[in-house]
């Protein structure tokens, strides 16, 4: 009790001193102490904005633009890094010597070089020296890469596209309900329904039928060279491409190791027993190996996902307008409201981290061993 009281006293004393000092220092330097800057005109432009934004917008809107850019790069990065990481992790366990070796070289190289160095390399040594639009590298599917960014075809929705989207959502929902029904029936009667076939028809077949019935409401706008630059399609900023590439490749190296360890953690006896029971390799993987491996994989995978989200803040080094670059960078420099802005930025990342680990914990609980 005495210890705790002393601890509280010291902590309280430090906090009070800090607050007094902060007030005095901020007053002395003429730094605003409230959030009144939030509605002031920002006066700077941002080159990638998912919501309408101009130099006349407020600091609050700049915050929103930065936050959405962070979420965008994190969301796409999570999907990409999961795919790459699982592929490399499985390749590391391949019986093929050279494939396993290449995967190992990938993991060791990318894990042991700082992410910032990789980002600078991709940005300054690979993407920036690319030729201009007239000599751009042309990739399949009308994708072009040059020093102004990556140009990809953009989908254009005509009227009737909403029916297509509706059919797709409906198909997903119906497939899920059918899966629940089939599962229940199998538990009760032991009979299996053709889940795969019905699901394919519902999710892919039905929307396709609607798509053609509605006279193909979807077309693509392809990027085309007009004069000195590309028109049409979507333009991904070089900064965005760099950050996405760097984050996904770097995190994938860690995920690959987690996946490898997870699969290796399932004892060989498990797959032998499955084979002895007569399960074909595919079913053994699906019902015996993967569920057990996932149990080992998910918790460290969650922390890698969190790392990717947090590392997206390295955007500030290459000028991608994410939350840190826009809000804790430009807005902080313009307003000088350091305490408020850094607290808000940290709070935002805390909320994103907590939400991600909450979602992954839910998934983990579904996967975890049900003990009697």
């Amino acid at each position, binding site marked *: 009790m005495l210890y705790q009281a002393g601890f509280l006293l010291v902590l309280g004393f430090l906090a009070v001193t800090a607050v007094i000092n902060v007030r005095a220092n901020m007053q002395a330097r003429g730094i605003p102490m409230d959030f009144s800057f939030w509605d002031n005109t920002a006066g700077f432009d941002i080159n990638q904005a998912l919501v309408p934004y101009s130099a006349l917008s407020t600091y609050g809107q700049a915050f929103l633009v930065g936050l959405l850019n962070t979420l965008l790069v994190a969301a796409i990065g999570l999907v990409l890094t999961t795919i790459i990481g699982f592929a490399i992790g499985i390749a590391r366990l391949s019986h093929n*010597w050279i494939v396993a070796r290449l995967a190992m070289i990938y993991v060791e190289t990318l894990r042991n070089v700082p992410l910032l160095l990789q980002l600078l390399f991709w940005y300054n040594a690979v993407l920036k020296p690319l030729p201009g639009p007239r000599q751009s590298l042309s990739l399949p599917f009308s994708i072009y890469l040059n020093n102004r960014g990556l140009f990809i075809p953009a989908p254009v929705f005509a009227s009737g596209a909403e029916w297509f989207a509706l059919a797709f959502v409906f198909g997903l929902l119906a497939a899920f309900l059918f899966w629940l029904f089939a599962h229940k029936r199998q538990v009760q009667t032991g009979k299996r329904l053709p889940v795969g076939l019905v699901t394919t028809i519902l999710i892919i077949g039905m929307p396709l039928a609607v798509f053609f019935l509605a006279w193909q409401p979807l077309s693509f706008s392809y990027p085309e060279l007009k004069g000195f630059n590309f028109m049409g399609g979507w333009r991904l900023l070089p900064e965005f491409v760099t950050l996405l590439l760097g984050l996904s490749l770097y995190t994938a190296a860690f995920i690959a190791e987690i996946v490898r360890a997870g699969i290796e953690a399932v004892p060989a006896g498990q797959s032998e027993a499955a084979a002895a029971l007569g399960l074909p390799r595919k079913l053994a993987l699906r019902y015996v190996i993967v569920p057990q491996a996932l149990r080992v994989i998910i918790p460290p995978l969650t922390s890698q996902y969190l790392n990717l989200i947090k590392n997206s803040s390295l955007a500030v080094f290459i000028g991608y307008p994410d939350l840190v670059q826009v809000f804790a960078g430009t807005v902080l420099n313009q307003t000088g409201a350091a305490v408020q802005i*850094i607290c808000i*930025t940290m709070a935002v990342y805390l909320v994103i981290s907590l939400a991600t680990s909450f979602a992954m914990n839910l998934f983990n609980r579904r996967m975890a061993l049900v003990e009697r």
Partner: protein
Amino acid sequence: MTGESFARQAIFVRNKDANVLPPPVSTRGFVATIRQNLFASAASSLMTIAAFALVAAVLPALLRFLIFDAVWSAPDGELCRATRAGACWAFIARKLPYFTYGSYPLDQRWRVDVMFGLSFVLIAWLLWLGAPARRLAAILFFLIYPILGFVLLHGAPSLGLPIVDTDLWGGIFVSLIVAITGIVISLPLGILLAMGRRSPLPLLAIFSTGFIEFVRGVPMITVLFMANFMLPLFVPENLAPDRLLRPVIGVALFASAYMAEVVRGGLQAIPKGQMEGAEALGLRPWQTMQLIILPQALTHVIPGIVNTFIGLFKDTTLVAAVGIFDFLRTVDSARLDPAWAGPAISATGYAFAAIFYFLFCFGISRYSLFVERRLARKRRR
């Protein structure tokens, strides 16, 4: 099938030798190894061919860039610009002092060299498991060396060492300072936080848990910004910390939260019987911690501590965000020197930095693996 016809079919009398089967496919020797490892199935063969194609495309280009087409010595960027294709190692050779010492005054650089030498000796002493008096090495490293190093590098006019302002510090030596200070502060602090988190005193536990989870939930760069912009506001104006000290504090606090989680893992792995045994012997709680629990727990998590240190070392590159000229930042600024400007300079600089970081981190991770194996062997006995 009726029983009769079955019986007729089943009757079988061999009147000549069975077909001679070919010998089983060899499982030894060069050809068999190749077949098993590279061409076990059609899919595997395809992958092998694809992998070889990848290697054939990348490896020669990489070797040409790094070695065969590289420019090894040149007075300035002229030669590098002319050959275009290869790395410009001459640029690295010329800038190496800058990469190592930053803008530290030329005639004072011996002080940095002494610091390098001291660090090397102490770290080798600590890492060599069979070395004598490692406890002394630990005391020297964690207590004496930081103070000595600071006095040596920053200067003490009374000892005849002129003051060198931290504005002039830079390069590899700043990266090492940040990393070493980080580990010197974060290891003890991490141990305290881990013990605090498991403490029966609720206030201490809440504070420790809150601190750890908060720091682990935010990006390092925001911690650095906080240290850089907010720390000077927290203290009276005349006590404002040095501009290099601020990010160092940020890095150390950040690393200590991660270190705390590693140490907590070790503490949890110690069976309760150890604690009870110590109590039965009449040891006080602090003695129990110091003599029984911590030595075992820390040995358990040496690999985790080393991995945290590798992460910390890689993260030191982020101090560039608050204007510190660490190694990567010096490379990144040297490549913009107009005297050397050329198409291959950026790639050369980054390749050099990558090799440096790779050798350092890979080396430490191999060491951690070695310690892990040794401990596993010890435990088995």
